[in-house]
């Protein structure tokens, strides 16, 4: 049953009323019901691109914050890749001191409005929450991400963010390759120290996966733009349409163009395909292509957009991660009749955020577990007509600890589709490696870096985010960008001393 924001707000108001005069005891805190995230009605939202999760109301965020037990050992912090002081900001949020709460978050995170929305919290901070453990249900952990999102949105909308202080110009220059979360955080921290920072982005819009991959209905692009505007206001120069390795090489940037250090945050932009027959038929897309058309090129805005979107009635999406959910939900919004996510394992092994899987289900996306594709078939005009599938069962756990799918002989079948979206992940784009001497990569093509400093095997060149971690998360990319910037700031300071 869909419950409106107004109704949820009223329930939260009643809770707050009960604790107006005295703070709740730990027992009372644990009894406060977990606050539900208000969302657009599924019936409505499959017909628009607007954000699905509407955000807590002020009463809700305070009620949810009251649930936090303020544990002395703060177990939740160990689950956050950037170690936000979670109980501290939640305590302020409970009191309604949202500006102060935002300050606490900003000590550790530069992109809370984004991470509050897209972090896989059930695998990070909320996984360790004492309350969730006590209630034996991870869904009843304190909704740390939702509180974080509210606080960050509050600070942005009420303009009480602190403009980061930029130190006096040092005369040193750093190049930042890419403009995803790793690069945004590295650029901000480098600039704060007073270094000249130029960010180079291949596409015609900055933001990386945050703009071309993750759809508007999950992460409004205005929020990403706001973060980029902040960078510009700090004096970071952003050069779009610049493919490092082709337009200029890293050796040119360092040799001829006078950059003293380089940060590479080029992401994991190389789509994996299934390697089965029929993969090049008309109507088979990588999730990257499908999502880029829709998000970056605004192809969903049929009528205004100049980039066409394939007209689909029956869509099969292969994969089980966030990329698969985003593709499936985009296809639904673009008018597909049926959309089926086909995954080799079961729902329990799906790596997607829980909330996205639930939202997809509410929107009518269907799931077919324990099936793997064998071949994509086409009609006589080369257009997708369906997929030959085989059933699987779960076998022994593999290296990742997940039980691996085993095909069941004789269980082949054919299902009719007119569109296939392949969302089985991304490998790292080999372009920079191929055009830069001295950068070593592992067998997956990921840059090898010093764990402490994020420096690559090429002195002065640092890297972080998906290009190092493989396809990971926004917050991990951000964490690495900051770690690299810290080391780069030390490197640049030392270099400057030598020069002086």
């Amino acid at each position, binding site marked *: 049953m869909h419950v409106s924001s107004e109704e949820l707000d009223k329930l939260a108001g009643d809770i707050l009323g009960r604790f107006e005069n005295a703070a709740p005891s730990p027992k009372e805190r644990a009894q406060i019901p977990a606050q539900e995230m208000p969302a657009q009605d599924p019936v409505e939202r499959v017909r628009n691109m607007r954000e699905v999760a509407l955000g807590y109301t002020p009463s809700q965020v305070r009620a949810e914050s009251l649930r936090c037990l303020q544990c002395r050992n703060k177990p939740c912090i160990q689950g956050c890749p950037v170690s936000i002081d979670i109980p501290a900001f939640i305590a302020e949020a409970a009191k309604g001191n949202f500006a102060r709460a935002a300050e606490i978050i900003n000590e550790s995170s530069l992109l809370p409005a984004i991470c509050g929305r897209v972090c896989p919290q059930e695998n990070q901070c909320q996984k360790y929450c004492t309350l969730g453990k006590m209630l034996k249900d991870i869904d009843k952990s304190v909704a740390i991400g939702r509180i974080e999102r509210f606080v960050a949105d509050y600070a942005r909308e009420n303009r009480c963010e602190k403009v980061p202080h930029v130190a006096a110009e040092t005369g040193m220059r750093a190049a930042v390759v890419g403009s995803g979360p790793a690069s945004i955080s590295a650029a901000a921290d480098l600039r704060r120290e007073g270094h000249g920072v130029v960010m180079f982005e291949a596409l*015609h819009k900055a933001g990386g996966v945050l703009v071309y991959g993750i759809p508007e209905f999950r992460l409004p692009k205005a929020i990403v733009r706001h973060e980029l505007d902040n960078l510009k206001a700090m004096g970071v120069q952003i050069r779009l349409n610049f493919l490092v390795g*082709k337009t200029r090489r890293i050796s040119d940037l360092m040799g001829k163009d006078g950059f003293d250090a380089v940060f590479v945050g080029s992401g994991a932009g190389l789509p994996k395909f299934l390697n089965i027959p029929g*993969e090049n038929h008309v109507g088979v*897309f990588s999730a*990257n292509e499908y999502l880029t058309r829709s998000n970056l090129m605004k192809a969903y805005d049929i009528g205004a957009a*100049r980039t066409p979107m394939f007209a689909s009635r029956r869509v099969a999406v292969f994969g089980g991660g966030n990329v698969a959910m985003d593709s499936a939900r985009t296809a639904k919004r673009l008018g597909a009749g049926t959309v089926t996510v086909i995954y080799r394992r079961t729902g329990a092994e799906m790596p997607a955020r829980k909330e996205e899987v639930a939202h997809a289900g509410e929107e009518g996306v269907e799931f077919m577990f324990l099936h793997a594709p064998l071949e994509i078939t086409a009609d006589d005009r080369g257009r997708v007509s369906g997929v030959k599938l085989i059933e699987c069962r779960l076998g022994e756990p593999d290296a990742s600890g997940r039980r691996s799918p085993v095909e069941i002989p004789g269980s082949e079948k054919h299902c009719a589709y007119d569109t296939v979206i392949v969302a089985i992940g991304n490998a790292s784009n080999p372009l920079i490696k191929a055009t830069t001497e001295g950068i070593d990569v592992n067998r997956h093509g990921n840059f090898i870096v010093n764990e402490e400093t994020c420096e690559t095997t090429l002195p002065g060149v640092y890297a972080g985010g998906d290009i190092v971690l493989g396809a990971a998360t926004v917050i991990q990319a951000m964490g690495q960008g900051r770690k690299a910037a810290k080391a780069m700031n030390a490197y640049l300071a030392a270099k400057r001393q030598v020069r002086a």
Partner: protein
Amino acid sequence: MNRIVRKEKLSAEVFRIAVEAPEIAAARKPGQFVIIQLGGDVNERIPLTIADADAGAKTITLVFQAVGESTHRLAALGVGDSIENLLGPLGRPTDIEKYGKVACVGGGIGVAPLYPIAQGMKNAGNEVKVIMGARSRGLIIMEAEMRAVADDVIVVTDDGSYGRKALVTAPLKELCEQWRPDCVVAIGPPVMMKFAALATKPYGIRTIVSLNTIMIDGTGMCGGCRVSVGGRTKFVCVDGPEFDGHQVDWDNMILRLGSYKPQEQEAHHRCHGLMKLNEGEA
């Protein structure tokens, strides 16, 4: 911002523009291309070959045919206007080497990207013969430029309104028989490239083609440009655009190019309506 500093109309539908792009002008090599986007949220990204460049003047030359909505919008820009987004140089450069005798075959707009290659081949010490074809006289472009670099130029038109009345494959077969080139470079509409590759195949002559698949990013990120070459999937934007014409799965490539035919036709008509243009004119 990349300002257009020169613009010429080469035929009813074909334009040549010189655009400011300092880094690209310095870095580009024959065979490479750019991707342009005309700004704003909704314009699409389209690839165009770098037909020439002047590193001193910091400009690159693009030659394009107005075939659909985006190329019509580009054609509507004049000197002093800017192309908001211009990314390049993309793709791998042509393997320009001393082969001995090189036949360069260009169809329609394909003559433009062929020109820097013919020039490069000549400079590398090859004997270069050019075959250029178009539907009719009005669509023949860059003949004088080609004559200036090539040892011989053969012109054909489908309707016989200029040069020989033939398809490019007819003189190509004759060259294969009589002149025996060591390498053939064919650039033009996919069907032309397909038949040029078929024509040279019996002679076992190495045949380079430049594929014009649909592209989005041009950096290897989307896989939309993929083709099957020798049974293996390749990304045209990073592995190409040039491939061994005898290995390309032409039928699949041509089908994929038609993925958005209905939408493109509608956009094209809408665009002619908006710009008050007649068909066959831009």
